[in-house]
């Protein structure tokens, strides 16, 4: 797995534990506490392989660097699945299950267009808060958003983007300045959990809740509560627990029967959580803190 402190992986861990218990198999969950890098992951994978598991669910932190670890596992007769991210060559991998960030970006554009009452021929000013220029999930979401705007909502003008450097206060600063510069701002796409927190706080402080559309990302409990309060038009959520559940189910099925009904590559779509989403679904997608 990736960085243990990331809520995304905490939620994934919970899904994995649930499914392992349901299938009656033993789960060994290992990962570096804070670093998302092959340097820290490879020794951890080696240590896990030394314990001779029957199957391995791997979240490669690098598509090339972890290829050798997959080969090593397969040579030892261990069945391998990839979740979230993949190794370059999937030949030896039973299945690759991932979320779709581009689709999430498109869903964000859709939710924002609905909120601002998009009509063809009119123009709308929108800004986007990112964490950095290089975060791959940010880039994929931005691409998805831009593609949806170009194809379906050409009246939406992306006026500016800015980086929060993972700091919600800096995200709030960006939004404050945008609100001053663009008095007619129609909407904000806050591309991850940090930007979502900062943008929500800025709208609350300026008394613009509900007046400016805000679509955030990542279902942190604190942000999910802000959907009900009308602060978020929508929150785009990934489903890391579902990814882990399907991976473990597939491995167990293959080990027991020698085949599996799961496709070679599975994309679990992102969902848009809104005020209309049922309580049960909100609870299902909210990232839960692991113990």
């Amino acid at each position, binding site marked *: 797995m990736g960085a243990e*402190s*990331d*809520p995304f992986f*905490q939620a994934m861990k919970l899904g994995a534990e649930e499914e392992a218990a349901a299938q009656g198999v033993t789960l060994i969950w290992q990962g570096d*506490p*804070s670093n998302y890098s092959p340097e820290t992951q490879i020794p951890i994978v080696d240590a896990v392989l030394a314990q001779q598991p029957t199957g391995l669910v791997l979240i490669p932190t690098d598509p090339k660097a972890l290829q050798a670890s997959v080969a090593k596992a397969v040579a030892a007769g261990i069945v391998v699945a990839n979740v979230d991210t993949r190794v370059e060559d999937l030949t030896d991998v039973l299945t690759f299950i991932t979320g779709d960030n581009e689709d999430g970006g498109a869903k964000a554009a859709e939710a924002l267009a609905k909120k601002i009452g998009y009509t063809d021929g009119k123009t709308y000013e929108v800004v986007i808060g*990112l964490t950095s*220029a290089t975060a791959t999930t940010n880039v994929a979401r931005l691409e998805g958003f831009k593609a949806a705007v170009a194809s379906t909502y050409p009246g939406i003008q992306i006026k*500016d*983007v*800015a*980086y929060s*450097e*993972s*700091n*919600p*206060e*800096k995200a*709030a*600063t*960006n939004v*404050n*300045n*945008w*609100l*001053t*510069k663009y008095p007619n701002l129609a909407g904000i796409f806050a591309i991850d*959990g*940090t930007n979502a*927190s*900062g943008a*929500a*706080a800025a709208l*609350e*402080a*300026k*008394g613009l809740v509900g007046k400016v559309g805000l679509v955030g990302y990542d279902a*942190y*409990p*604190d*942000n999910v*509560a*802000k959907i009900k*309060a009308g602060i978020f038009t929508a929150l785009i959520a990934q489903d890391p627990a579902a990814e882990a559940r399907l991976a473990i189910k597939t491995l167990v099925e293959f080990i027991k029967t020698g085949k599996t009904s799961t496709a070679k590559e599975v994309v679990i779509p992102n969902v848009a959580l809104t005020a209309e989403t049922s309580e049960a679904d909100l609870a299902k997608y909210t*990232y839960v*803190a*692991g113990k």
Partner: protein
Amino acid sequence: MTDSNQTAAKSKVQNPLVARLTSLGSNQSAVLVGVLVLLTIVFSILEPKFLSVATANNILTDWGSVVLIAVGQTFVVISGGIDLSVGAIIGLSGVVAAWTMSEIMGADQSVKGADSYGILAVGAIVSVAVGLFVGLVNAFLINKFKIVPFIATLATMGACLGFSVILSNGMPIGSANDFALISAMAPKTNPFSWAVIAVSVVVAVVGLFLHKSRFGLYTYAIGSNTFAARGAGINVERHITKVYALSGALAGLAGIYVYIRLGAGSPSSGNGRELDAIAAVVIGGASLMGGVGRIMGTVLGALILFTVQSGLIMIGVAPDWKKVVVAVLIAAAVAAQTLQNKNGRK
């Protein structure tokens, strides 16, 4: 505005003369105010909306958290040290305060307005206590184990980041809040919020403490020459402990300020702020070699830093270029003061 502009322009041409004239007041501060005025004029020409109460409020709100840690950092830098843990303390103290308010006092994000004041007061005490504790740990590592401040505070920075993620699972913890505290009191006429006024009072008190008390005198003495200070009978270890404790406590205060601003305690809410604080201190004219520095310089340094950051967004500089521009401006501000000092001494 135009008058100040001319003064700023003149000060470049007739540097030695103006320097001699203004040295009656505070030389350094005059230069920094000049820079601030110049920046405001340039940004306002490029984007007329920059010259507004709303922009002033944006800048002052940003200034509020960083000036607190920058003022603490000023004491540390004057004493010849450095405190890298202040950014991480903002995150940790905000998370611990939020955790206390939500888990122990049972207040969720629906608790607002006057109902939140008592709970927030408890949160503030917890937040400052956390900062004070980390400051004491810094002093302990520096005094007892003779670890250089750079490494000692780097270690506590890592520990604070780790603990805040452990406590929060990496997610923001929401609890009681009142955004009216942090937004402009009268958005069209007055850019000062209650929180910014409170921060200004704290800064003024701490500033007087540095420039008018024996405590301040000792800080300068230790930073200028530790051996001489020891020889003069100053208990250096005890004084260093107080300096880092003050820096930690102010970072804890910044922690609750950021909490109020965000309505949540977030583990990453102090990310990179130690560098903003050091930049403000250095722009303000303090020397990282110790013994030199003024609170007014730091206050203006932080103001310049956020005027630039706000201005760059307002005039629409591409995000990748913002860092470059900020870096160049910091270097220019420091270089300008070095030249000013040289001319002043002639």
